[in-house]
Structure formats: structure tokens, C-alpha cells
């Protein structure tokens, strides 16, 4: 590995200053489970000279719930803290679908949703789930703080709309009313320790047997995690039925633009979008109907 400088600021201000002073050669690190690997192989795009460890900054470690504000997950909060959190388990249990399958036990001790989002891999297992939950990212830079829907963060493989002098602070998940259910599933050839061949995050709200809102988001079938708005819209107003779910699955499959690589062919990935959307929506519906 080439030489790097290491900084560990304690405040958002100090971190943003380090990032902006570096002229684009610094990068924030939370768990480092992607960044350290990229540094080690001399990644063509992500190869900073300065690593800014953001785990000492209080705001980035926040994990809190407020019925009005919803759930706030700091950008450095490790996966194991998410699935070990009472509020998550009570109000946002579908987030555990992602938190428990990013890496294995060891990786979950380090990896964060924030890092997963900033790494912006098309296969990032938390991103479609965040999108399905209508999550919003809070980002601070030299010119202030802005809030951006998660679906607008990833712009390409490994690329985001977060500027090099900006810092992702947290991800906010709005509170869900009664009748909400969500699910993230992915397909992998093994049962753990694998990259999604395809993944689907889905959320639904059901009132009186009808979908009142729905979202479907896909992983690993486009240059970025994909929000398939038409799939969700097709469900709204429809009574819950296998037919309605299949229609949404067809739309998700049609929206997928996968490539063929060592993890799967384009045709197989499109096929999986159908299968997984059906399964994710079915589970989301079960959860919505099971939740009181």
C-alpha cells in the first residue's frame, strides 16, 4: 500500500476542514471495510492520500428514535449496533434485513450503512432498503448542511453526489404509520459472504386491504441502486393481490439494466428481479399485515 496520512477529528467542523483542505485527496473512513481494500489494491478511483477516521465524531455515532423525527442513524454506526437496537427492532425491523447480511459477523462489527452509501456500489445491500424506507441523508460541507433523499446520492459505480469536501453525517428514516411493512432480500449463490447478484428493497403501506403507498428499489442491476418508481406507483390504490404484486415485479424486471459478469448474466439478473421483487413485496405485505 502507498503511504497515507491518518487523521482522527472529533468534530464535524474539523472533519470538513480536513476534507476541504486536502484538495480532494482525503476521504472519510468509518469501518474501512471497503476503503482499506481499495487503498491496498491502489484502486483507480478511490485512492486518497489522507484517511479521515470519523468514528470519534458524536453526530456520526448517533442512533436515536423519535416518533416525530423518525430514526436517525449516524454515518459511522456499525451494523451490529443497528440490529442490536431496541428502536430499530420495534419500529424499523426491516433494516435488519440489510444489517445482518452485510459481510459476516466480523464485517458487521465495522461496516456501516453510511459507508455502504458513500461506497456507492451498485450491490450495496443497505441502499435499496434505505430507498424503500424513503430515507434522507444529511450532508455537511464548507457551505453548510443539506438534506438529500438517498435515491439521489449514488450517481454511478463508486460515485456519489456528495462532494469531496462534504461529509455524510447521518441517515434519517421517517416514521411509518400503521400498515407499513418493508423487506430487503438479495440473491447470492452462497448463503453468506457474497455480493448480491440482484437485490430488492420493497416497502408498502396497506390500509383497508389496499396499497396506499409502495416503493421498490433494486441492487446490482444498474450502475447505481435503482428506485423503480413505476413499480411502486402501480401498486398504489390496488387491493393486495398476487396479481398486483406480479405487475410490480414485471415493472421492476423491465426497469433493470444489468450487465453480465462473473456474478451472473444479464438475463439471469433480470429474471431474479422478477423473483425477488415478488418475494420482497410478499414479505413486506406480510409484515404490514402482521404489524398492528
Amino acid at each position: 500500500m502507498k503511504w497515507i496520512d491518518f487523521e482522527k477529528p472529533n468534530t464535524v467542523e474539523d472533519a470538513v476542514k480536513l476534507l476541504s483542505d486536502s484538495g480532494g485527496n482525503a476521504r472519510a473512513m468509518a469501518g474501512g471495510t471497503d476503503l482499506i481494500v481499495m487503498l491496498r489494491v491502489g484502486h483507480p478511483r478511490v485512492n486518497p492520500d489522507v484517511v479521515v477516521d470519523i468514528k470519534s465524531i458524536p453526530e456520526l455515532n448517533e442512533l436515536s428514535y423519535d416518533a416525530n423525527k423518525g430514526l436517525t442513524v449516524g454515518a459511522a454506526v456499525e451494523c451490529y449496533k443497528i440490529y442490536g437496537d431496541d428502536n430499530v427492532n420495534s419500529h424499523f425491523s426491516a433494516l435488519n434485513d440489510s444489517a445482518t447480511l452485510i459481510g459476516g459477523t466480523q464485517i458487521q462489527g465495522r461496516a456501516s450503512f453510511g459507508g455502504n452509501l458513500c461506497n456507492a456500489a451498485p450491490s450495496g445491500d443497505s441502499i435499496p432498503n434505505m430507498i424503500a424506507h424513503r430515507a434522507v441523508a444529511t450532508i455537511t460541507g464548507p457551505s453548510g448542511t443539506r438534506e438529500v433523499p438517498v435515491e439521489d446520492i449514488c450517481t454511478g459505480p463508486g460515485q456519489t453526489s456528495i462532494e469531496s469536501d462534504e461529509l455524510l453525517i447521518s441517515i434519517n428514516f421517517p416514521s411509518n404509520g400503521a400498515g407499513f411493512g418493508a423487506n430487503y432480500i438479495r440473491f447470492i449463490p452462497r448463503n453468506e459472504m457474497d455480493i448480491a447478484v440482484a437485490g430488492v428493497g420493497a416497502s408498502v403501506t396497506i390500509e383497508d386491504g389496499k396499497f396506499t403507498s409502495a416503493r421498490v428499489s433494486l441492487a446490482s442491476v444498474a450502475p447505481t441502486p435503482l428506485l423503480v418508481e413505476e413499480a411502486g406507483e402501480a401498486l398504489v390504490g390496488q387491493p393486495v393481490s398476487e396479481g398486483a404484486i406480479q405487475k410490480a415485479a414485471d415493472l421492476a424486471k423491465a426497469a433493470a439494466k444489468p450487465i453480465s459478469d462473473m456474478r451472473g448474466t444479464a438475463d439471469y439478473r433480470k429474471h431474479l428481479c422478477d423473483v425477488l421483487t415478488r418475494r420482497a413485496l410478499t414479505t413486506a405485505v406480510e409484515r404490514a399485515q402482521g404489524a398492528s
Partner: protein
Amino acid sequence: MTTADYERNMVLATDTDYKVIGTRPVRHDGADKVTGRAIYGADFDAAGLLHGKILRSPHAHAKIVSIDTSKAEKLDGVKAVVTSKDFPEVGNQWLKDNILASDKALYVGQAIVGVAASNPHVAESALGLIDVEYEVLTPVLTTQEAMATNASILHDSLTTEELGKDTGVVSNVASHTQHVKGDISKGFAEADVVVEREYNTKTVHQGYIEPHNATALWSPDGRLHVWCSTQGSFVVRDSLAELLDMPVSMVRVTPTEIGGGFGGKIPIYLEPVAALLSRKTGAPVKIVMSRKETFEASGPTPGSQIKIKIGAKHDGTITAAYAWMAMEAGAYPGSPVGAAVQCVFSTYDVENSTIDGFDVVVNKPKTAAYRAPGAPNAAFGAEQAINELAEKLGMDPIELRLKNVATEGTRRPDGPVFGRIGAKEVLEAMRDHPHYQSAKAEGTGRGISIGFWFNIGFDSACNIAVNKDGSVNLTEGSTDIGGSRTSIAMHAAEVLGIPVEDVRPSVVDTDTIGFTAVTGGSRTTFATGWAAYEAAQDVKKQCIDRAAIIWDVDANNLQMEDGVISSQSDSELKMTFKELAEQLSDTGGGISGSASVNPSGVGGSFAGNIADVSVDPDTGKTTVERFTCVQDVGKAIHPSYVEGQMQGGSVQGIGWALNEEYFMNDEGTMTNSSLLDYRMPTSLDLPMIDTVIVEVANPGHPFGVRGVGEANIVPPTPALANAIYDATGKRMTSLPMSPGAIQSADAE
């Protein structure tokens, strides 16, 4: 996946009454290995140690036009740079080129330049300062491409050897071998039912968790000392001596603990580079491969193309069998097709058979051994064909196999006549097993298969010295990869009648023990165990002689049983081994026994599987629900370690069957060279692996040992293919049977 609640291990035992053999003691190196104290190759350290890194070819096929290392040599901290020019001019050029390429790079990852520096990061930075100019050529990546008439040629000097004769024709086919028994055209004419198909397999890796490593110190006195994780310290010594043009006695190799090998740690890769760098610097130089290098630049087992045709009469009698097998050697000749032809039909007594084997060079790393090399590829085809035949004949697949099974006296298609073997007993144990007798669970498919591996003997040496406390020090030269120190020590303990805990086994360096061949070919417990048996007999005889001196009686009247020396004629005369050990100094000095053997009584081993799978109809993903491995091991010296071999081989076979492959792009780069994307099974991908140890004693070994390490990897790929067919109606003829492949396949 739940713990099996049925009897998981039925030992069909030989009836000899042993005291130590067949027990399950804790291994002698156990405490070191569970406390982190065992020193593996990469753990080795020495004063003034330098770290080496290797620049590797980014091209699968390219001429090396020029190499400029001048900038790298000037980098602060860089101590030496070596290229192929640093080798002596004599010696095998292909062997040297696979260590450091000279005129051509023949696979992505082939070593070009070695650098030694004060720390590994500096050495790595130096690699980036080396300029190599290549003239890129078209890569050849499969046997089909390589055998095509207009194929790009890897070696201008390689001419095809056709049935033992050099044709003089330059091609990528290094050799064509053929075994003919009887007359297959007659045999197929007699057949009522014929099955014929083509099968294809991909390159796969042994997947040992420890990457390759080597440390070398070229001493000013001219002697070279190497420490490395190797399956065969003497192979390393002899290869280094050849490459570096020095007598073998000038090279000393100390085998460290080794983190898996499965055949892949027999060849040398880093050792000569570390040696050359050490000669230039005078310092010890350590090189450790990364995981990516381990995939790209060691020796995987080949992809292959296999055609099988088998014919049988209505009653199930196989009348003819034909196999055509082409295997990728990688960049230099030497694929395991030579072993595959010895295994493909050897389970069966077939009157008419022809087997064609082709050794084909391609632009991939030079293949190395991998657990029964070649046999799993062959069995993937042959054992599916046998099941297809059973289906067409309306016979149970085990009954069809039993009807044709090879037994003592059967002539193998490749010539040798079997001695006492246990193929029939393995099939019977499979048939009678509660797994096979049970009904399949709803939605699952069941498949079976059997596989053969011939095993090898070769040289082994052992020394045993008696300590005055009645224990013995046992030294041997076989790398211990799975508990062989203990299985070898158990041979000595049984002969001497002492507890195995009183035997202290050490694996020592090439200066300290007689020539010992590799830990491979399922030979270690068989051959080095035999050496220990003979060395212990030597000790035993000397003990009797000493007792004769002490008692002043004729040694011919004395015996030593269960660690007690006694007289056949005078019941008063009794002495334990321990009591004698205290008196050695007064009776002529200590006792040392030694033996070197090259046993010829190798007994081949058969392993069979019963596999239940479920296949997700939407995704094509296979789940192994239940798996049973049956193997004839001759005699299980340490049943736990035997079970471990059976389970480990089975699971490597399961990985090979379902997901493992070198995924190559068109340029010949492996795009999945990490343990994330090269999908070896995790703990969550498997059920418990049930084992049945069958013991049909090998008359060619004093305790009946056959060798257990390899046959178990042969049956899983066809057993799972047969199970997937049973579950889905899809006949999978290519490996891996990955979810996407199954999903897109058509049912028969």
C-alpha cells in the same frame, strides 16, 4: 440443515486387535495449533529480514520485449532486483520460465521480476517503477480453442507426442495417450442401451487458506537454506538444486507448518526468487503471495472437455466404455489427464474399453495437483453416464454399479490388475445405509456416485531414538497437513507397545532425515507410517538384544509384546520398555532405530456419496440437504482424522460442483480472484457430512492402510449432478452447476 440424529459413522472394522491403531488421541502438535504458537511459513522471521515482492504479467499471452528495472533499483529501501537472467543457463527452461519468465509471458500473473526491500510496502512501490514492454498475443483459454487448427501457439518448441512417438508437429497438444482393452466396436454392437454425452469443467483452485510463502538465506559458505510451507521439502530442495545448478547437498529446506496444500503446495514458485534475491543481498529474504497471486500464479486444477460413451445389455452388463478427455495443462505441459485415464472406468469390470487422453497447453497458470488430480473431472462425466444408463435400464443405480463392480483380479482399462479392493464393499455400505434406505424428503432429489483413486507409495524415512524415560523421539520428513505426525507416531507406538503420548514426533529438515517424497498421493500415513513401523521394529529388535545382554541369555528366546520384554523359557525374566530404557547407557549406549522404505503394496481407495438436494425452482439455487460419504480406507489408523479427510474432500467436491470456477474474461484475466467471488463453501452452505469408514484391509501394508486423502473428492460432482437431475429433470453437463446455469438449463 440440522445435526443428523442417525448413526453417523459406521466402521465396518477389520477384526485385528490393536492397542493404539484405531484410537483417537489428540495430535502432538495440537496445543501449538490452538494457541497460535505453531510457526507457519509466513510467521518465520530472521535477523535482518528483507521482504520480496514480484512483478507479474498483466497479459495472458505476450512476448516480453524488454525489462527496465533501473528506476526501481534506485528507490530508497530497495536492496536487489532479479529477473530470469539471474538464473544459471543450464536447467529446464520451462521450469525456470514458470518461476521468472524469460521471453514470453503465458498467463496473467506469471512472475517477471523479483524485488527485495526493507519492508513489503517499499518492495511493492518498487514494482510500480519497473517498465516491461510487451508484444501482446492472442490468448488461448480452453482446450477447444487450443486444439483448433488455426490456434495461436504457446510454444514454438512444443511438438505433439502421439501414443508415445514425437510427431514433430508444433501444436498446443503436448501429448495424446490411449489405453485400449478388448474391442469397443464389438462391445457397443453387443449393447442394448447406449449413453453418450459431452461434459465440460472449469479451472478450480485448491483453495488452501494460507498463501504461498518462502524465506531464503544464501549463506556466504555457499549453502542455501530455505524455510517454506511445502508439501515436500525434498522436492523443493531438488528443484532448487536443479534450477540454481548446485548439488542437492548445498541446499537445506526446512518445512514450516503449512496451512493447507491439497496438491497445490508441491511445486515451487517463490523459493528460487527469494534465493536469488538473498544471493544478491546476503540477507534473508521472505516473499509471501497475496490471495490474488495465489489464485493467478499458483497451480489450479484444470478445466476439461470430456466425452463419455457407455453401452450395456438389458441385464445391466456393461459391454463397452469409451472416454475422450482433453485437459488444460496450463502454460506448460503436464495436465492430470495422465491420472484421469487411470481412474475414469476403473471402478468397473468392463470387457471392452478405449480411453483417449490429451494434454493441452493454454494461457492459464500451469496446473498442479489437486486431491486425486484429474479423477473428479473424469468422474463428473462417467458417473453421470452410469446413472443415465441405470435410468434407461430401469435399474437402481447402486445395483447397476454392483453388477459391474471391479474386484480382486479385475484388469483395469489402463492395464494394472487389482489386488484386494473395497469397491463392492463401499457400494454395499451405501446401499444399506439409513440414508439410502430412507424416503427422500418432499421436494428433494437424491444422487449417488462412486469414485476411485489409485494412491501412491514412494520414499519415506523415519528415525526413532529411545529416551531414558521410556519415551521415544520420532523424526520424519513428511509435512503434517492434517494430523499425520500422530498417525505416523501411532504406527511406532503400536509396534513398541507404548502409549502414543510417549512418542514425540517431529517433522524435520532435509539435512536431518532421509529422502522423503511429498505429502500427497494419499501416501503419508501409508508410506511414512510404514517407515515408522519398520524403524520401531528396528528399535524393538535392539531392545531384545539389550535385554539379552542384561540377562545374559540368548536373544532368540526373548520377545517384546505390549511394551514388555520377556523370556519364552523363563517366566521370571520380565522387563518393561521403560525399565530397559533406563539401562541403555550401561549396556552399550542409546538405541536408535531407522528405516527407509519405498513400498509397492499400494492399495487404491474407493469413495462413494449419497447426496440429497433441493433446488429452488425460481432461482436455480441448490441446497445440499443431506450428504453421506463412504470410503474404503483399508485400516483407519486415527478414525477422527480419517473422517476429517472424508468430510473435507467431500466439501471441496461440493464447492467444485456448485459454485467454484476461474471466471476468465476474453483477455484471459481471472475476474474473481478473491475469496469473495471465488465461492468456496462457508459453514452456512453445508449440512453435517456423515461418514462411513469401510475397512477392507490392504494386504500391502502391515496394518492394512490404503491412504485416505483423495478418493473422497471424486464422487461429489457427479453425485450432486445426479441429485440435481433427480430434483429438476435437468441433466447438468457443465461445471459449476451454479444457480444461473441450473435456472437456464432445459429439463430432459
